[in-house]
């Protein structure tokens, strides 16, 4: 078990020093996945053969004194929203079941070049739409801390696999909280970088103006390590920032003296679980003890975050998902189209029937709901009232953040109003489910960065998450503050004792 519990930084060091081999490392995690995934369902695909082959190649190169990459031998799990040329990429959708992209996403290519070893593709909410991972076409992920509970979402598989020691590091994506919220509910650390810091090329789009890829690991230091590989300018992504990437790991070990952290009263509205509130207050106390100062800041438009997000994201999604029409790839309905286009048929042509049936069969209910919502909101006569207005509110929210960061360096608070909820608890109430993103959507709407890490546990043993947000390109400070917190606490080192559902 010792190897499985190593941090990514220690693992890379042990591999470099020859204390362990890449094959040993990969084998340990693959065995762990084999033993555990049945009850957690964190992985949609596991590439045992590919991972071992790659690990053996890295070991051979290292033995021969040839150059190896910065992450040589480190097992990494990839959210199944990232295109991989050597593994299926499904977005947890029937629409893309068995789909193999002809190319690697930019992050995948960077990790490959750094000699990371991909163990598999992780489960998620279909097309990254959801906050519980129950929207996967291939079954929900279970929270390793309580198998009856959701891991959060949409990067639920990535969060759960790290929490359950199935991988030291996973890559997630965050459109409205999809890295930070599951990290919070699973007791791990997850970073949503500034929009444009990590290339989106090869990330299957949900909402292009909000999507961002980031690392998920046990601690902030491991996230810093991964960021050094995955961040950076990509000429193939027009929204990618052409700004030098700092050596995040070198910037960690600094005290928090003089760092101003904002506390937002808007975060303490009704609905915040008292145990979560208490955990968050204790986290503020730790940060204060570490030298930070705590100040009240306002985000006056925070309450409009959810409605704004749930217009902009579905509008973009309705367009981004139009390509899944059965014509070129992905699911195509096998139902015959005879009779369509004739009198009495519900379809105006065989083509339209093929489109309708393929999409009806290929997409799950939440995806359909958002595609319809977005299509409606972009329609003539509604555009100004919905989409255009949402864009205006988004500007106000962004301005809130700019204003707040005039007086503080970071904004702290809860990542999620409640600890992990039970599977099925919110599935009949889409609006209740949308509220799980309450504290996280603002970061995406403002295009800034945020990090989530564990700051305590409920009496029933469920992790409580704390979130820090920073101005654009404030990743060094986010990672530094989270790492400092983790040098003073051990919440992130705690391990679930899984396999049994708690009541």
């Amino acid at each position, binding site marked *: 078990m010792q190897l499985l519990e190593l941090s990514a930084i220690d693992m890379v060091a042990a591999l470099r020093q020859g204390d362990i081999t890449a094959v040993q490392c990969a084998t340990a995690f693959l065995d762990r996945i084999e033993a555990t995934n049945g009850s957690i369902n964190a992985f949609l695909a596991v590439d045992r053969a590919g991972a071992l082959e790659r690990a053996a190649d890295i070991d051979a190169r290292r033995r021969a004194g040839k150059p190896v990459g910065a992450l040589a031998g480190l097992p990494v799990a990839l959210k199944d929203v*990232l*295109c991989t040329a050597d593994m299926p*990429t499904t*977005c947890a959708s029937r629409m*893309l079941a068995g*789909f193999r*992209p*002809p*190319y690697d*996403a930019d992050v995948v290519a960077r990790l490959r070049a750094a000699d990371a070893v991909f163990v598999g593709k992780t489960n998620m909410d279909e097309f990254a739409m959801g906050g519980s991972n129950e929207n996967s076409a291939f079954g929900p992920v279970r929270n390793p801390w309580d198998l009856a509970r959701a891991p959060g979402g949409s990067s639920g598989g990535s969060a759960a696999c790290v929490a359950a020691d199935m991988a030291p590091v996973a890559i997630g994506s965050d459109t409205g909280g999809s890295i930070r919220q599951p990290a919070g509910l699973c007791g791990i650390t997850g970073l949503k970088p500034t929009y444009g810091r990590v290339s*989106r*090329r*090869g*990330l*299957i*789009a949900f*909402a*292009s*103006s909000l999507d961002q890829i980031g690392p998920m690991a046990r601690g902030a230091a491991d996230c810093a390590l991964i960021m050094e590989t995955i961040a950076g300018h990509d*000429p*193939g*992504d*027009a*929204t990618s920032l052409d700004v030098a990437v700092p050596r995040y790991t070198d910037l960690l070990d600094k005290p928090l003296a003089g760092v101003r952290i904002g506390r937002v009263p808007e975060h303490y509205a009704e609905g915040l679980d008292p145990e979560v509130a208490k955990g968050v207050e204790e986290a503020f106390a730790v940060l204060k003890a570490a030298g930070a100062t705590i100040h009240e800041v306002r985000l006056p438009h925070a309450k409009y975050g959810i409605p704004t997000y749930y217009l902009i994201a579905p*509008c*973009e999604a*309705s*367009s981004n*998902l*139009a*390509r899944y*029409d059965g*014509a*070129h*790839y992905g699911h195509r309905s096998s139902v015959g189209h005879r009779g369509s286009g004739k009198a009495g048929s519900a379809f105006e042509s065989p*083509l339209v029937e093929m*489109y309708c049936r393929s999409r009806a069969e290929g997409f799950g209910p939440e995806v359909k709901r958002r595609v319809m919502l977005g*299509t409606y909101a*972009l*329609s*003539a006569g509604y*555009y100004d009232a919905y*989409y255009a207005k949402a864009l205006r509110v988004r500007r106000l929210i962004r301005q809130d953040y700019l204003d707040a960061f005039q007086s503080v360096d970071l904004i702290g608070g809860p990542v999620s109003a409640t600890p992990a909820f039970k599977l099925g608890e919110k599935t009949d109430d889409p609006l209740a489910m949308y509220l799980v993103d309450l504290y996280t959507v603002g970061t995406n709407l403002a295009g800034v960065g945020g990090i989530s890490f564990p700051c305590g546990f409920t009496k029933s043993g469920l992790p409580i998450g704390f979130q820090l947000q920073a101005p654009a390109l404030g990743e060094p400070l986010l990672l530094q503050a989270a790492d400092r917190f983790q040098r003073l606490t051990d919440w992130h080192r705690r391990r679930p004792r899984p396999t049994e559902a708690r009541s």
Partner: protein
Amino acid sequence: MTAAPVYTTIIGLEVHVQLQTRTKLFCGCSTRFGAPPNTQVCPTCLGLPGSLPVMNRHAFELALRAALALDCRIAPFTKWDRKNYFYPDLPKGYQISQYDLPFSSDGQLEVVDPKGAFSRRVGIIRVHLEEDAGKSMHDEAAGTADTRIDLNRAGTPLCEIVTQPDLRSPQEARAWLNELKLLLVYLGVSDCNMQEGSLRVDANVNLHIPQPDGRVAKTPIVEIKNMNSFRSVERALAYEAVRQWEEWQATKVEMGKMPKQTRGWDDPAGITRPQRQKEESSDYRYFPEPDLVPVTVSDAQVAAIRAAMGDPPTVLRKGLEARWKISAYDADVLVNQGRDLVAYFEELATLVGEGKVASNWMQQDVLRTLNERGGTIGEFPVRPTAVADIIGRIAKGDFDTSRGREIFAEVLTSGRAVEEVVASLGIAAVSDDDLVALCRELLAANPKIVADVKGGKEQAAAGLIGQARKKNPNVNPGKFRQMCIDLIKGM
């Protein structure tokens, strides 16, 4: 007897032009025409999951060049929008286009008929840039109807040019399109090859019919599609004007009383036919393309493009007229042949030192043979120096123009130098002594002509030229004729 139709035809055009770029608008795939289907594609133009567009700067610059030449206002800030609709040759389910902030607007292009029949300034509402869709090839066999998709064209940069309804006749529309094409080819913006689909035209047309009460009745606007040549455009518009006139007389239905109709031109049949109407008008749900960043255009950038652009045809025509003292008609003929031919002409005119003669040789010899042979002026074997050489020898009186033409033809076919051809044909200036001897010989043999000239009919001397040239092809007819007259007068 019915009254002649009294109406004005109102025409506006929508032109799509493929830009002459090596690669597509948002990816690095080739835009070459005619490659096997689906061989010039990548994840981006296939619309594969996760793929992203990156703007082709060169395409944007070509589009700027076109807009500047069309006298458009260039927006300092322009953005991309998605036009959403489902069709199998549109793999993303949306087209990246420009909606409310096109990169240019409010331009104009004038067309002047060189014979003075009309002169029309046509306003340009907007010029915007967008990506082309792929091609659907429908299997005609009914029942087993299959559609095959070629995405080689998907993502090719297109400029859409929308005019004001300023044109007033099918002839004007055709002439304007010719002028537009000439301009875009001059600028290197597009090859405007309609057969390869690099220029496509839709036309909107209706009639304005003055009423006895002073009101002007307007017929419903019809959009005509499917026109594959400028000639088709002219024919389709002419047909449509008559059709609308007849329909108006029968129904008196005015604009606004029915939705805009789309009709397709059936070229072999020479008629327009209604195309299937959708129940509801399409809603493309335009919204800003989040995968691309807005484009800003600086004054410096605009100035640089303008500086590198070269003169447009209108300026060139005026320039040729002024520099070489040639007629508007001649300047029009030369400029309409393209920039390379104009350069050929100017080189020739400079060598000859005179425009009118050079222009005549261009039109009567160079252009005529070029049209017969095909090929470009750049490949034309008789270069301006050779033509100037021939013209110079004619001016010196070495031989006459028709002899010069023979030499031109020989230079063209043999590829030899003028000097050589002149020598090989035995062309040498006829000495005055030889000429006098020839005159005397012919005058002796033609007493009637001598008598006629003596009687004051000097033109009768021309009757001897043919005979003289039979005896010596190098005889200069003018000189010969004058010498005959002089000799007769001295008799």
